[in-house]
């Protein structure tokens, strides 16, 4: 028997609210399955199980807020011969021609969705990403709706549930418009708007009240993490200017050849150079724990994403060093979209071995990051801007980016940090080799 506990989804998390169980007692789960949705102060997160087995008992009810480490469920590990083998992913049968976009196929594989069971809404009935997302909505595993005697467990997306909580909307009274009757964000917002229009004194919950709460909680979570960082981590800072003319020229040429959905942003090149450089400077990639450095088990790049409405979150692009520039661009776009809507996974919040903060083209020239504990370094890219650049006795205007490194002096020194930044510079001068 093993315990499934409230995970710590970041250094700033002390408690979590169990929003929803995705499994019930008796269900078989395999490592990596999403078993619950947990609300941290920052977001609704899909939490995976780390052991295959059978769910014996759920110990915490949906809606309960519990400390990190609390046992949420007991899981009987698999492995005895009596237990049927874990269902394996069915390979696509060669005869069945299911029309689906490449992105949809990838997503379906990630989410374990069988394309054969989905009704496509794209051109010619092709299955598109949105269809997979609708099918993979966690609520979709819930039992078919029971007759109205007792309020049936509504199918609802995690985002919609959070908004419903924030707005105090009773989800049992909403008819879902999503796939399979799933209640979507739009349904909840419509219900909230309808209630406001009704101006019933009985619906006295002030709709604007919860948002400041969420905002305050987010600020507190960030405050806890950065305070710990500045209290415990002796930061040192290095800065350098990098000539981006070669990288941007390469990017422009590449983008001319690419249709809009495949276009690259400079951020993809910056992330690629960072991930590659970390391979040569492993002392920046990992954690300071128990008085020593523990290297990361891969290069998982945390990317700071600002959230509209306030705050930020830094989920990781897993195994960023093994990805091409195009793959990093796709991963980045996907991560930003999910960070701002719904569907970040627990591992993405806990696995980052290094963080990059990229202010983008509307930011300031320079950003000095605060290390996210227990990581040992953070890289900051300011906006790329045209600046005077002296080279070989000549002065010219070039696109330049300021890169800064904030690193834990317990784990590394300024000399290695300088070499690390120089390596990133070197890589960005040969964008075609990235």
């Amino acid at each position, binding site marked *: 028997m093993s315990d499934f506990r409230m995970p710590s989804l970041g250094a700033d998390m002390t408690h979590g609210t169990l929003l929803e169980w995705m499994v019930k007692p008796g269900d078989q789960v395999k490592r990596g399955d999403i078993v619950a949705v947990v609300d941290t102060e920052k977001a609704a997160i899909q939490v995976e199980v780390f052991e295959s087995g059978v769910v014996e008992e759920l110990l915490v009810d949906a809606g309960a807020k519990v400390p990190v480490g609390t046992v949420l469920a007991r899981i009987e590990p698999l492995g005895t011969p009596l237990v049927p083998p874990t269902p394996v992913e069915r390979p696509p049968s060669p005869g069945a021609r299911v029309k689906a976009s490449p992105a949809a196929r990838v997503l379906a594989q990630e989410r374990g969705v069988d394309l054969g069971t989905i009704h496509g809404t794209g051109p010619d009935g092709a299955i598109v990403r949105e269809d997979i997302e609708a099918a993979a909505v966690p609520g979709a595993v819930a039992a078919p709706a029971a007759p109205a005697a007792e309020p049936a467990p509504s199918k609802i997306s995690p985002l919609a549930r959070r908004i419903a909580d924030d707005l105090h909307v009773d989800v049992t009274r909403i008819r879902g418009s999503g796939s399979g009757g799933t209640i979507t964000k739009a349904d909840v917002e419509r219900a909230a708007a309808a209630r406001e229009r009704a101006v019933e004194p009985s619906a006295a919950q002030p709709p604007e009240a919860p948002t400041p709460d969420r905002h305050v909680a987010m600020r507190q979570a960030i405050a806890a993490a950065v305070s710990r960082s500045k209290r415990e981590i002796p930061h040192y800072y290095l800065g350098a200017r990098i000539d981006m003319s070669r990288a941007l020229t390469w990017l422009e040429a590449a983008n001319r050849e690419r249709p809009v959905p495949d276009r690259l*942003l*400079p951020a993809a090149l910056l992330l690629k150079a960072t991930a590659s450089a970390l391979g040569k400077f492993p002392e920046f990639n990992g954690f300071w724990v128990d008085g020593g450095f523990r290297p990361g088990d891969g290069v998982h790049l945390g990317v700071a994403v600002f959230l*509209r409405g306030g705050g930020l979150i830094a989920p990781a692009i897993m195994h960023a060093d093994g990805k091409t520039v195009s793959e990093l661009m796709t991963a*980045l776009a996907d991560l*930003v979209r999910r960070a701002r809507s719904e569907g970040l996974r627990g591992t993405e919040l806990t696995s980052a071995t290094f963080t990059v903060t990229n202010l*983008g083209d509307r930011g300031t020239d320079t950003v000095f990051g605060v290390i996210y504990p227990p990581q040992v370094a953070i890289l900051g890219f300011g906006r790329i801007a045209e600046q005077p650049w002296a080279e070989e006795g000549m002065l010219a205007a070039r696109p330049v980016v300021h890169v800064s490194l904030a690193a834990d002096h317990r784990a590394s020194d300024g000399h290695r940090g300088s070499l690390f930044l120089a390596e990133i510079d070197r890589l960005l001068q040969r964008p075609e080799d990235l």
Partner: protein
Amino acid sequence: MTADDVRRTILNALQTIAPEIDPASIDPSADLRDATDMDSMDFLNLVLAVNKELGVDVPESDYGRLNTLDHMVAYVANRMSATHSEADSA
């Protein structure tokens, strides 16, 4: 499709990207990215939506011509009618 339809489509896409923005509050002659706090990823998503919904592929070199809502509507409507007249004359 009229310029108003184009404007509506763009504003719808904008709402998906920046849900907290009231479309009515956008000054059509102000810098759109400043007004809506769009980063380069948001802007790329807007260009992507224009491509998907209206079939106009905006090359990167033309991004500068999409700096305000009015300019964006004019650019897209112009590109759409150009495509139509090409098709007519063919």
